[in-house]
């Protein structure tokens, strides 16, 4: 992509919606030092009290892209930021289009459509005005240790162009006091990227992906810094076309694992699960706070142990997945 000096957009959409053309920050002025978290959310109001504060602590700016939520996610985010005195570091923008779900629906959607995951992500990241950006999900919670690590990385990568990979662990929340942490699957994904034309989003098979170069330097964070919330009382696969859609390729192994653990917990078969830890919080403390502030920082390392023999997969298998997010 080449810089434009006449103010014309860097990327237009097939629908001809000029308000949602894309103009990259690096073409419109100097990018400030620091990192912006980009949170793309749809109906994540209940998670905002846990998701947002650590990101406000670890990065300089947060851009929350609300994709037509019906549960007042944006209001919840505003309220949380105000409680932490960080209103001026939270930007909320709306993206009103129905975005294709991962899997076959995504595959059938043209990349330059406003309904495409790739276009949606590019538009979301075009809001960033700092030198680095961090892709973050509306259900991912950084631990206390994770805040320290990401805050440090924000300046440690300033003199170089590096991609930051962070492992995350699914946390299946049963209620305010009980949750199940899946330590049976090693899941490392790329979250932090320098903001430049070499690292934009393109369409891949099941979902979008952010482009990498062969000579990109990668820095990998250790385990135990982030959890991904999965509420057992919610439909956690609604962003997929169907469960069958992620039963097809090695790239979707993580989703299969999530589905299997989720189903087993919903059906009361938790004793069938290996390396899924039941955690109960002390009186007066929510289990998500307990896991992210105390349990995980204090847990013995390494968290995800060696692979289970192949014949016993997939329920207990520890796998290493390093690839695009869904």
């Amino acid at each position, binding site marked *: 992509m080449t810089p434009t000096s006449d103010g014309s957009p860097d990327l237009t959409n097939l629908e001809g919606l000029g308000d949602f053309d894309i103009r990259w920050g690096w073409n419109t002025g100097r990018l400030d030092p620091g990192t912006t978290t980009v949170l793309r959310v749809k109906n994540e109001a209940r998670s905002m009290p846990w998701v947002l504060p650590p990101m406000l602590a670890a990065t300089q700016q947060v851009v929350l892209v609300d994709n037509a939520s019906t549960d007042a996610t944006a209001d919840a985010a505003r309220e949380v930021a105000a409680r932490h005195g960080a209103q001026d570091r939270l930007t909320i923008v709306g993206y009103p289009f129905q975005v294709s779900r991962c899997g076959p629906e995504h595959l059938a959607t043209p990349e330059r459509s406003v309904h495409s995951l790739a276009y949606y992500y590019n538009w979301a990241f075009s809001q960033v005005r700092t030198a680095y950006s961090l892709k973050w999900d509306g259900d991912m919670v950084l631990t206390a240790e994770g805040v*320290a690590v990401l805050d*440090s990385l924000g*300046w*440690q990568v300033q*003199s170089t162009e590096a991609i930051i990979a962070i492992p995350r662990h699914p946390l299946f929340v049963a209620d305010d006091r009980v949750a199940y942490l899946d330590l049976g699957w090693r899941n490392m994904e790329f979250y932090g990227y320098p903001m430049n034309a070499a690292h934009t989003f393109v369409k891949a098979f099941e979902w979008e992906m952010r482009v990498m170069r062969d000579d990109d330097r990668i*820095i990998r964070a*250790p385990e135990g810094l982030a959890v991904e919330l999965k509420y057992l009382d919610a439909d956690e696969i609604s962003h997929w076309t169907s469960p069958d859609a992620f039963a097809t390729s090695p790239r979707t192994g993580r989703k299969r694992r999530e589905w299997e653990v989720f189903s087993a917990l919903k059906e009361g078969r938790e004793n069938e699960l290996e390396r899924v830890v039941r955690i109960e919080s002390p009186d007066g403390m929510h289990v998500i706070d307990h896991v992210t502030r105390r349990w995980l920082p204090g847990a013995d*390392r390494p968290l995800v142990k060696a692979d289970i023999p192949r014949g016993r997969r997939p329920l207990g298998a520890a796998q290493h997945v390093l690839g695009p997010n869904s």
Partner: protein
Amino acid sequence: MLSGALQQLGLHVPAPEVPPDDSNPKGFAESQWVVDFHDELLRRTAVHVSDARPQAWFETAKISLKERPRIRLHSWLERQFGEADELLIKDPRLAWFMSMWRAAAIQSAAEPAFVTMLRPPAEVVRSKERHYAGRLGNAGRATAWLNMMLHTERATRGSERVFLRYHDLLDDWTSAIYQLGDAFGLQGVLNADIPDISRVHDFIDPSLHRSGGSWDDLDVPTGVRELAEETWQQLNKLVDDRGGATDATDALDELRTAYITLYADAEAIARSSIMAERLNQTLRADRAIATAAPDAPVQALVPTAAEAVTAQPPAARTQAHRRRPAASPADRLAGLIPHGLRAAVPSGIRRRLRALLDRRPRKR
């Protein structure tokens, strides 16, 4: 000096300590394990304690995120908390691994608090010039100070922190250390009794260590001096505001960016010098091999690349290159790595790597 004084007031320095020597007969108040740990990690990342490269922070960040060193540090810290509730950790190398220490403290449910001593940059450069020989030069010493101070300041944001002027400590240590103890709630300072305070008076010698803060006669480029002076002014604001002066931290962000840009420009300009130095290193290595094995049948017949270029007529040059044996994969790789870095790898490991690289594929 500060850590020694705090130790006199009862703060626990994990044992064993680095033994005193002639340069510091009163002791360093540094834990040997910490120094060795940091030394090892710096060696593994090819970063030296006075590294002026902004990118060196990325290199130490990478190793700081590896599981094994994190586990080692956390285990050691846990053992030390078995000895005392408040620990005093001092090492000039610590700044390179601050993020790992912060994480280890969180894992141990401890609250890290950081003290940064401030000393005028020109004085630091003079002091290092006097005490440490080396190839860094005064421009390198000044940029090392900038790199260290700008990034240390950034690294300690968000934690409890205090900036102390070295000269304030010399002028009136009671005021400086009481403020520090008050800020961190250090019981040893707040509850110090007469013998404790007397010991610190004996320990601190206010007549020592004044080198003068003038840049006169120091061979440091103007741009570097100006950056260092501006950084010094901004850091001083943090002394009076317990590290929280927002206008100062904003200004220091700008200065850090300016330093990174300055360094990148200098590297870009100096690229020819860097290439020449690499070629010289290869040349010296070739000569060393030739000197070490004068009877080697093939090597002895072959001029080095530089000699071939300067001393041989074109036809002979071609012949010489034909007669030179093809470099092995290990030789080719070794030629790309600076000598200093190669020398840092233990010889046993170098031999094994060479053997691996030179292993020929088996015929099928």
